[in-house]
Structures are given as structure tokens and as C-alpha cells.
């Protein structure tokens, strides 16, 4: 301090310091203009967290899992004018280039069997725009009968439609979200639109936070400046301090730019922190300088001010720096960067307050006549004296508060979900409510199954897991590769089920479109995803669902693939009943027993009729007249499902017209071989279905739902056929639940860990500094006590009022420890009983001397941060409001806890020079945060 003081006292050195500092500041400001903005929200995912790592790996493996959902409210989604605009919007979205896949009513495919000519006819679901009311009603009936569409692309009540957009890998979320909004809004300017899914939610959170920071930061800074001006009534001095603080911010930003660090929404809050906390150091020194300058010449005043306040400023600054540095122990990169550079900024502010501020003050020969304002000092003096006098009672009360706070803080919820980032009534909340009401929600979990997805047994395992998941409360829909393969199989082979052989699955994959396939299976077919739509996006409601999904995954992993076909069919039946809103009260075990029961007795007449139909279709290689087809069918049906080509050829030849060449019989046998086997299989499945439906007491297929259920159950029963169950071994598979909700769970664990790490690290480091500063571990603990008490109260209140610990609020502890412990430093540094005085006198004098400054600083920081609560961004509201409350609480706790626990009559701070009584008197009037007493307390 001595060397520094002598340096500043030298005019040439002061000039040099000012010039160099301003030069550095200007250069830094120029450099800071090159600072690049990062809007990558993925940076906020904790590195090293297992759940996050798995989610990241999942996204990398499947290209992307980002799904944007647009909900459109409409009275008539089947009106031609609406559909035309939907087509235009869908086409335009597809052309954006940043979307892997866009799906809506306008581009969904559809297929129908063609019993007459054979095979299927594929069309667009909306193959033409309805020309009149009759067309419109027909289209409505058709669309609402498609189970895969209702509840996904059109609401069951027909009053809303959805557009589903899968983002391409690496697509910038905000930009794509904006593009989608522009396209859809242009197409539907009068409809109410809802934007759901992570791309829109992330964009909303980012935009509101950035908007609020840009809008509110100047007001927060202005609030700090106004409070400084009103309190100290020294425009010149305050301006010097503000210039110093501004320069420290410029230098920090310039350093970041030079190091290539990108600015983000967390760092955007740094100016408020630096202004609120960093400006206090300069004020502190300047006030001492003014006080001394009342009776001493400027140079002496300056050196003495540095001597007297330097150690306190350094102590305060270092505690804040190390507290912020504790963020380096966090695993969220932007928070680490914030901790590092906010610490650098505070360090620079502290450094400039001891160099630039006195140097410029000296050069400008600033002088200030202190105003008289002692009411606050007197009040705080009475408070601290009272606290010291009632140590026992107050100590007990504070202990009780601490215990209550600790107890309430056990209720602190660290779960993370989308709701942590926006308020009820905000656009994302409204969108989620809309999607939940009409489409079952917008939140997806995934179950990833690793194994050869060309193996039918593994696909059936996927389907079994999906079926079980679909039955869980809180799950509103599932989609998986088994469904896609079954649909492709229905088109290419006529049966809506997972085929029997790996070769068949492989060829289906080859003909399926990449956008569809990429959602569910990797290109190497080694990994598959089940998409599970969740009814809620709230962590508390999602957690039990995830737990049950975990259990299903574990059980499936233990059981493996292909071990229990009847069991799989039982789950299939339950899931189908659930899908069709039918009640099946039987347990899976009971169903399995029913399915296994009895030997099928297929209806031969049905088989023969189906064979005749096939023989008359274009899929038959040999054209047959009706009579000849009937003869062949009758002959074939006697073979059962024996499909050896030689036997078939002989049988067919015997029933064909003798005039036909032998090649006709050979070709006909080839044609009919597979259909014959399949027809018998379907007939047996239909018998099993009828038995089951009858036993379950479900009505005959009188309604659409029961009819579709029955058809689906028939397909499920086909898996019991020998070929189906024998094919495909139980390949080794790995199964894990994943997705955004799982990542949120990991994020929650990370937040808790970060909080503990940063809390312990900052408390330990601050304690070390305090112990060194006061040369006593006990005094260090004493100084830390008010902050600990504050944190217990704040966390307790968060627990009581349901304010969650999240990425933002987890920054609070270190910030409060760093800034809040300064108050105790100032109070203890002023703690000195007058000759013959008691500890209570010391408390009074310290309260009078340091109290107003502490209180002013608390109000200043609180004002700055409370401005952040005026915006829409919930994270800013939380951190702003809590920090503001914490600083006021910390000040109050300091005035109560330190006197209640301090037993000494004086505390010495390392390296500090005591002020004389005259210095003190003047200093208190000007800046009550100085170390001198305002006036001697009456001796008791």
C-alpha cells in the first residue's frame, strides 16, 4: 500500500496511470466491438453429465431429435381454402432446406387395398381439394378414420391441425424457428397459431432473455447511478468512479474478444453485476479521500486514503473474485466463462479503484464538501448496539431462523423442465396447453434400442416396449420403426405387420423414405428410437413416467427379443385396445393364456374365396376365366398351406384346362405359392381373433373402432404363425430411456452438483481470505455467518414459494457470498470500541460508520437487480428478484448477526492503517462506509 500510495502521490505517475488506463480502456472498447455473439443454447448443457452426453450422442446418431410443432386452430380443417393454404405452407416449409421432414394433412400419404385388380392404390390422403360440402364431408370421414393421423396431424374434435417439422442436423434453432413462423404466419394470418416443441421454446427463452437484458440493463445501470448520486451528492467523484467501472468492463470485454470468447445471454448480465458491485470500491476510496482532504493537503489525503482503505477494498474485492471463480467448478460452460470474466471484471474494478480513481481525483483536484445525513447512520448504530446488547436472545432467534431456513430449503426443487424458463400465460405455456388438449402434448421422450434392426425379433422387441409404454399413464402416443415397417409391409406385401425375415425387412428399408426412416433407425440399422409423447412437460409429472419407462426398458433388456410371442401379442392387443379407446380388463398374463388357448380352425370357405379373388387379380401371372379360377381355388384349398412348388404345380395342372401349356401351371404355382400360405395364416389369425374378441366380450365389429381394432388384432395374431416366431434370433440388445426430459433430469442433477460445488468452493475460499485478512479463523467464520444465514433464508423461501433451483438461480449462492461478505468486512473493519467502551459500543460505532455504506450498497445492488424482474424472461426475474432480496437480507443479517456473535472490542484488518478521530468524523458524513466511527457512542 505504501508503494502504491507514493506512486499515486507523484503527479507524473498519476498522469501516466490515467493515460495508460484510458488508453487501455479505449483500445479494449475497440477490441470489444469484435466480440462475437453466441446464440447456441446447447452450450448451456453441462459437459460431462452422463444424461446430457447420452442425449447429445443420440442427437448425433440420429441426425437430430429436434421437433418443431405448429398448432393451428380452425373451425374447418377440411375446407378447400384452408387445405390449399396448408399445402402451400407445407411445400414452402419443405423448401427451407433446414428441415429434414415436414408432415401435415397436406402431404400425408394413404393407401387402400384394391380387391378387384389386386394390390394397393396409393394416393395422398388429401388427394384433391373438396369442391363442395359433400366432398368436404367425405374427406372428413376418410381422414378421421385414419388412426395414424387423428391426434397427430388433426385433432380428434376436428378443430385443430398440426404441422410437424423435424429439423436437419445442426440447423440453427432460432433461425429455423423464425423461418417456420414466417411461412406459417403468412399462410394463416387470421388463425390462432401455437408454436410448440424445443426449437420454439428455446427461441422464446433466448429472445425474451436477450430482449429483457438489452432493454433493462441500461435502466439497471441508471438505477445504480441514481442511487449513488442521491446518496453521495458528488457528481464529479461519482463520475470518476463510473468511468473507472466502465473502463474495467471495457477491458474485460476486450480481453474476451482477444481470447475469442463469444458473448452469450448469461454474459449479457455481466455489466449489471460489475456496475452494482464494482463501483463500490472506487466510491469507498474516494469518500475516504474527501474525508481526509477536509483537514489534510490533497497528496497526504490520497496516500492516507489508500493506506486506510486499500486492504479493505482488496479484501472485499478478492472475496467477490474468488466467489465468482467458484463457477469454474461448474460443468456448464457459459457459467464458467461468466465466473471467470466477471471475476476478472471485479478484479479490474478493484484495481482501478486503487490506481485510476485516486490518480484522476488527484489530477483533477476534486474536492467535496460533505453533506450532513446521519439519520441512517444513527438508526443502524442503534440496531447494531441493540443486537450486541441482546446477544443471547438474538442469537437464539437467528439460530431458529437458520434452522427454519435449512428445514425449508430441504423442499428446494432442483428439477429442470421447460416450465423453469417461462411463465404461465406466456406463448410457450399456451402452446403446450393447446398441444396437450388437441394432440396429447409436445414433449417427447425416447427409448433407444441398440441391436440389428433388420432382425424381425428385434423389431418385435421394439414394438413390445412401445406397446407397454403406450399403456402407461402420462403417455399419450408412441411411434416407432415397427409401425413404419408394418405400413411398408402392408403396401409391398399386403400385411400390416413386421415381416418374417431379415431379408424382407432389409428390402422394406430400401424402399422407405429417408426422412421417415431417419426418425426411427440409424442408417446402419444398429440403433432404433421409440418416440413417446408425454402428456406433460412438468418435471414433477414427467418423473414418475420416466421411472416407469426405465423399468420397462430394464425388464425388456433382461427378457431380450423373441422369447415370448404370445406375450408380445398380449401386449399388442392391450395397446391396440387402448389406442381404439376400448376397455379390456384382462391382465397381460390372462390375455396370453387366452391367445395360447386352442388349435385354430380356419374357415375353409373364406380361404377358398380369398384364393379365387387372388387368381382373378392382376397379381396372378396367369390370366384365368372365373370358372377356371374357381376350379383351381377349390383344388388348392385341399392342400392346406403346403406350398411346395412341385406339389402346387401338379395340383394346379390337374385343375387347369387341358389346352393350356405346361408353363401356365408352373407360372401359376409360382404365383400362388406365397398367397396360399399367407391366406391360411390370415384365416388362422382371424379364428384366434374371433375367439379372443368373443372371450373379452367386445362387440362384433359394429363400430369403426371395433372394426379397426379387430383388423389390427388379426395382424397381431399373425406373429403366432410358425414362420414368424421362428425367424430371427434373440440378438443382443441394449435399451435405454433418453430424450429431453431425461436430459432435464440430468441437468437437474448437474444444477444440484454445481450448486454444492460452487457453494463449498466459494465459502471455503472466502473463509480463507477472511481468516487471512483478520488473522483469525474465528473472525473469518464470523464474517461468513451473515451470508450463510442469508442463503439459508433465501433457499428456505425458495423452497416455500416453489422457486426452483435452476441454471440461473444456482448462480445466486456464490454471488451472494462474494458480495454479501463485503458487508461483514466493512463492519468488522470499523469495529473498535472507544477507550473503556464495551463490545456494544464498538457495535454501535461500527454500525454508524459502516452501516449506511453497507445499506446503501445493498439498496444499490438490489435496485440494479430488481429492474431485471420487470421483463418477461423468467430466469432473469428469478435471478434478479432473488439477488435483490438476498443483498438486502445480507445487509440486515450483517447488522444483526455480527454484533450478536462478535465478542471482541476491536478487530484488526491486515495492513490497514487506523483513521484518526477527525478523519473518521469527516469520513462518516461523506461516506458512511469508511472505517471510522461517526461519533463516539455514549458510554454505558
Amino acid at each position: 500500500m505504501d508503494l502504491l500510495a507514493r506512486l499515486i502521490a507523484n503527479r507524473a505517475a498519476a498522469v501516466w496511470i490515467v493515460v495508460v488506463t484510458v488508453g487501455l480502456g479505449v483500445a479494449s472498447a475497440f477490441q470489444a466491438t469484435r466480440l462475437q455473439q453466441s446464440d447456441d443454447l446447447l452450450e448451456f448443457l453441462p459437459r460431462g453429465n452422463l444424461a446430457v452426453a447420452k442425449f447429445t450422442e443420440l442427437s448425433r446418431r440420429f441426425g437430430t431429435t429436434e421437433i418443431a410443432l405448429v398448432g393451428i386452430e380452425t373451425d374447418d380443417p377440411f375446407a378447400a381454402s384452408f387445405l390449399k393454404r396448408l399445402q402451400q405452407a407445407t411445400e414452402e416449409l419443405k423448401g427451407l432446406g433446414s428441415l429434414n421432414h415436414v408432415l401435415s394433412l397436406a402431404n400425408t400419404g394413404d393407401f387402400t387395398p384394391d380387391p378387384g385388380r389386386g394390390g394397393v392404390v396409393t394416393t395422398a390422403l388429401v388427394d384433391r381439394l373438396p369442391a363442395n360440402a359433400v366432398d368436404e364431408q367425405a374427406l372428413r370421414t376418410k381422414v378421421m378414420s385414419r388412426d395414424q393421423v387423428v391426434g397427430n396431424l388433426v385433432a380428434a374434435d376436428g378443430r385443430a391441425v398440426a404441422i410437424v417439422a423435424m429439423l436437419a442436423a445442426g440447423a440453427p434453432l432460432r433461425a429455423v424457428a423464425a423461418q417456420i413462423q414466417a411461412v406459417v404466419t403468412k399462410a394463416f394470418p387470421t388463425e390462432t397459431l401455437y408454436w410448440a416443441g424445443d426449437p420454439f421454446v428455446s427461441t422464446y427463452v433466448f429472445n425474451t432473455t436477450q430482449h429483457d437484458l438489452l432493454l433493462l440493463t441500461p435502466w439497471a445501470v441508471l438505477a445504480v447511478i441514481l442511487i449513488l448520486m442521491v446518496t453521495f451528492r458528488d457528481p464529479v467523484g461519482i463520475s470518476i468512479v463510473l468511468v473507472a467501472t466502465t473502463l474495467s468492463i471495457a477491458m474485460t470485454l476486450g480481453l474476451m474478444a482477444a481470447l475469442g470468447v463469444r458473448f452469450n445471454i448469461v454474459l449479457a448480465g455481466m455489466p449489471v453485476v460489475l456496475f452494482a458491485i464494482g463501483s463500490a470500491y472506487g466510491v469507498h476510496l474516494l469518500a475516504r479521500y474527501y474525508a481526509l482532504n477536509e483537514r489534510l493537503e490533497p497528496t497526504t489525503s490520497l496516500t492516507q486514503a489508500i493506506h486506510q482503505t486499500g486492504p479493505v477494498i482488496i479484501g472485499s474485492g478478492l472475496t467477490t473474485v474468488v466467489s465468482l471463480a467458484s463457477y469454474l467448478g461448474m460443468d456448464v460452460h457459459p457459467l464458467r466463462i461468466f465466473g471467470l470474466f466477471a471475476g476478472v471484471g471485479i478484479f479490474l474494478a478493484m484495481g482501478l479503484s486503487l490506481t485510476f480513481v485516486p490518480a484522476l481525483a488527484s489530477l483533477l483536484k476534486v474536492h467535496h464538501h460533505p453533506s450532513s445525513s446521519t439519520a441512517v447512520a444513527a438508526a443502524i448504530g442503534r440496531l447494531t448496539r441493540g443486537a450486541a446488547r441482546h446477544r443471547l436472545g438474538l442469537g437464539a432467534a437467528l439460530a431458529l431462523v437458520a434452522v427454519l431456513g435449512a428445514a425449508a430449503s430441504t423442499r428446494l426443487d432442483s428439477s429442470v423442465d421447460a416450465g423453469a424458463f417461462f411463465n404461465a400465460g406466456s406463448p410457450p405455456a399456451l402452446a403446450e396447453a393447446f398441444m396437450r388438449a388437441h394432440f396429447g402434448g409436445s414433449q417427447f421422450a425416447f427409448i433407444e434400442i441398440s441391436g440389428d434392426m433388420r432382425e424381425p425379433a428385434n423389431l418385435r422387441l421394439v414394438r413390445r416396449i412401445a406397446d407397454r409404454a403406450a399403456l402407461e399413464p402420462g403417455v399419450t402416443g408412441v411411434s416407432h420403426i415397427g409401425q413404419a415397417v408394418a405400413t411398408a409391409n402392408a403396401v409391398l406385401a399386403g400385411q400390416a405387420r413386421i415381416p418374417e425375415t431379415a431379408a424382407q425387412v432389409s428390402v422394406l428399408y430400401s424402399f422407405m423414405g429417408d426422412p421417415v426412416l431417419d426418425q426411427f433407425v440409424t442408417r446402419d440399422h444398429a440403433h432404433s428410437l421409440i418416440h413417446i409423447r408425454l402428456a406433460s412437460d412438468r418435471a414433477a409429472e414427467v418423473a414418475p413416467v420416466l421411472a416407469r419407462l426405465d423399468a420397462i426398458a430394464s425388464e425388456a433388456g433382461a427378457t431380450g427379443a423373441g422369447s415370448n410371442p404370445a406375450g408380445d401379442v398380449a401386449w399388442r392387443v392391450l395397446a391396440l385396445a387402448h389406442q381404439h379407446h376400448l376397455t379390456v380388463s384382462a391382465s397381460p398374463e390372462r390375455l396370453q393364456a387366452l391367445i395360447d388357448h386352442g388349435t385354430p380352425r380356419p374357415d375353409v370357405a373364406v380361404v377358398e374365396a380369398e384364393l379365387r379373388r387372388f387368381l382373378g387379380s392382376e397379381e396372378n401371372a396367369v390370366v384365368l376365366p372365373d370358372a377356371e379360377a374357381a376350379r383351381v381355388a377349390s383344388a388348392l384349398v385341399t392342400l392346406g398351406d403346403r406350398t411346395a412348388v412341385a406339389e402346387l404345380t401338379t395340383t394346379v395342372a390337374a385343375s387347369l384346362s387341358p389346352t393350356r401349356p405346361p408353363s401356365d401351371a408352373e407360372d401359376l404355382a409360382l404365383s400362388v405359392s406365397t398367397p396360399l400360405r399367407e391366406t391360411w395364416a390370415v384365416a388362422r389369425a382371424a379364428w384366434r381373433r374371433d375367439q379372443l374378441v368373443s372371450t373379452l366380450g367386445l362387440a362384433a365389429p359394429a363400430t369403426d373402432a371395433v372394426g379397426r381394432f379387430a383388423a389390427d388384432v388379426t395382424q397381431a395374431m399373425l406373429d403366432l404363425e410358425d414362420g414368424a416366431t421362428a425367424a430371427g434370433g434373440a440378438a443382443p440388445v441394449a435399451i435405454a430411456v433418453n430424450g429431453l426430459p431425461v436430459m432435464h433430469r440430468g441437468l437437474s442433477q448437474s444444477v444440484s452438483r454445481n450448486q454444492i460445488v460452487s457453494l463449498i468452493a466459494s465459502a471455503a475460499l472466502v473463509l480463507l481470505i477472511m481468516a487471512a485478512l483478520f488473522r483469525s479463523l474465528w473472525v473469518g467464520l464470523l464474517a461468513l455467518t451473515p451470508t450463510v444465514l442469508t442463503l439459508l433464508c433465501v433457499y428456505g423461501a425458495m423452497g416455500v414459494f416453489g422457486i426452483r433451483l435452476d441454471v440461473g438461480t444456482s448462480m445466486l449462492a456464490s454471488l451472494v457470498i462474494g458480495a454479501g461478505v463485503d458487508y461483514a468486512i466493512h463492519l468488522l473493519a470499523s469495529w473498535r470500541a472507544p477507550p473503556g467502551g464495551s463490545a456494544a459500543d464498538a457495535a454501535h460505532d461500527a454500525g454508524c460508520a459502516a452501516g449506511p455504506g453497507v445499506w446503501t450498497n445493498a439498496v444499490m445492488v438490489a435496485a440494479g437487480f430488481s429492474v431485471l424482474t420487470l421483463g418477461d424472461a423468467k430466469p432473469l426475474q428469478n435471478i434478479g428478484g432473488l439477488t435483490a432480496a438476498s443483498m438486502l437480507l445480507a445487509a440486515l443479517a450483517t447488522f444483526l448477526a455480527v454484533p450478536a456473535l462478535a465478542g471482541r472490542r476491536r478487530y484488526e484488518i491486515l495492513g490497514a492503517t487506523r483513521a484518526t478521530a477527525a478523519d473518521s468524523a469527516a469520513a462518516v458524513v461523506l461516506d458512511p462506509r469508511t472505517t471510522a466511527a461517526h461519533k463516539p457512542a455514549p458510554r454505558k
Partner: protein
Amino acid sequence: MIRSKDVFRATLFACGGLLLSPPVVAATSADEELAAVDATIGGMSDQTVVMEMVTNEPGKAERRLTFEATVKGTAWRRVEFLAPADVKGTRVLVLGVDQMYIYLPAYRKVRRIATHVKEQGFMGSAWDHDEIALAVFGKVFRATAVADHGATLTLTLERKADQAFLYPRLEVDVRKDLHQPIEIRYFNDAGVNAKTETRSDFTCQGKLCTPRAVEMVDHSRGELKSRMLLKDWQVNRGVPDSLFTVRALQRGG
């Protein structure tokens, strides 16, 4: 979800490359040049090609597909996939929009698929149904302008009012000596160049020519690129009509 349309596209796609061989015709105006180009496309009674298609998509593994395609007239088409193993032996017959048949060896049966949809790529390639099916420009487009660049000229084609082709405007660079398109730029409704197709390295048998390489780049899908390389090309062999039957499809060969 339903990919039967891809089967249709597969055949159209495979055959699309065949419709490129020309008798050279002299032409001057836009309409005449368009007619000359169209004449080069439909000038053979039959042709058979073997092609390898290579698709490169950013971030994804390269995909290769080899097939043999036979075209007779302008309506009958038959394709057999030769590689990779997943699709080897799969045969597709197209006699018309609602007369398409596919034989899948893994199922050992013929399936009829009538498709009326046209969108998205075939087997992950950059080609769509419309581009593949565009055998003759003049049926869908009218030429509105021609710009002469010496060895090449550029035709501007506008979609006819009664047509539903995906793109309303095309720019076709034509090699004047062959009357062959060498680059086709597809413009979407917003006037954006959505795709670019280039045809190069022409090989000729007498007066009939065809490109050895055809490349399509989809600018709207991260520059998804597919390249067809000609492995074998035979023309006017007198392919019998019986090749284009369900019976022949089932038997193979």
C-alpha cells in the same frame, strides 16, 4: 410413411436416364429447339442401360445402387436392381400409372401398386418423381425464350397452365451440336433455384447419344447430391413385348 410410390419412382428414375438419346436435329427458334430436344429423347424403339447411382448426403454414409433398366416406346419400363444385396433381384414393371408391379425375391410374389403420388426422393437420392418422369419437356412446358451462347443455348421453359409439375419454370442449357440438355435448373414457386441437374460425358452409337454421367443436386436439402454413372447401354435390340408382363417379372431373366 408409405413408400410404394418409391417403387414407381424407382422405375421412372431408372428409365429417366434412358430417354436421352438423339438424332441430331437442326433448330433455330425456342419452340423449334424444344421440339428438337424432345425428338432426341423419344427417338428409339427400345434401349437398355446399366447404371450405378451414388448419393452423397452431408453427414451420412455414401450410398450406391446399381440397376438395369429397359424401356420400350415411351410407356413400358422394366427395372431390375443388381446391387446392393438388400434389393438385388427386385424387379419392377411399369405399364402405366395404375399398372405398376413389383417382384420382391424376399417375398417370392408379385405385388401390384397403383400410385398417384409424386413427391420426395427415390431411395434417398436427389431425384424426385417429377424430374424423373419428365421424359419429354414439350408435354409439360412451353419454351418462352432462348439465348444463344455459341456452342450452347439456354431455353427458358414455363409450365403449361393445365400441368401440375412441381416446378413452374426450368432453364435448360442445351448443347447445340447434339440437341441434348447439359444442365437443367429447376425453379420453385418462389423463383428459387431448388435443384440443378447436369448431364455430361456423352457417348454415341451412330447418331444416338446419351450422357455417361447425370448428376442432380438438391439445393433445398443441404446440397444433397446424386450421380448416375452409365455402365452399359444398348439400343434398338428388338426387346420383345413379353418382357413387359407379370409372368416375365415373376420368372426373371
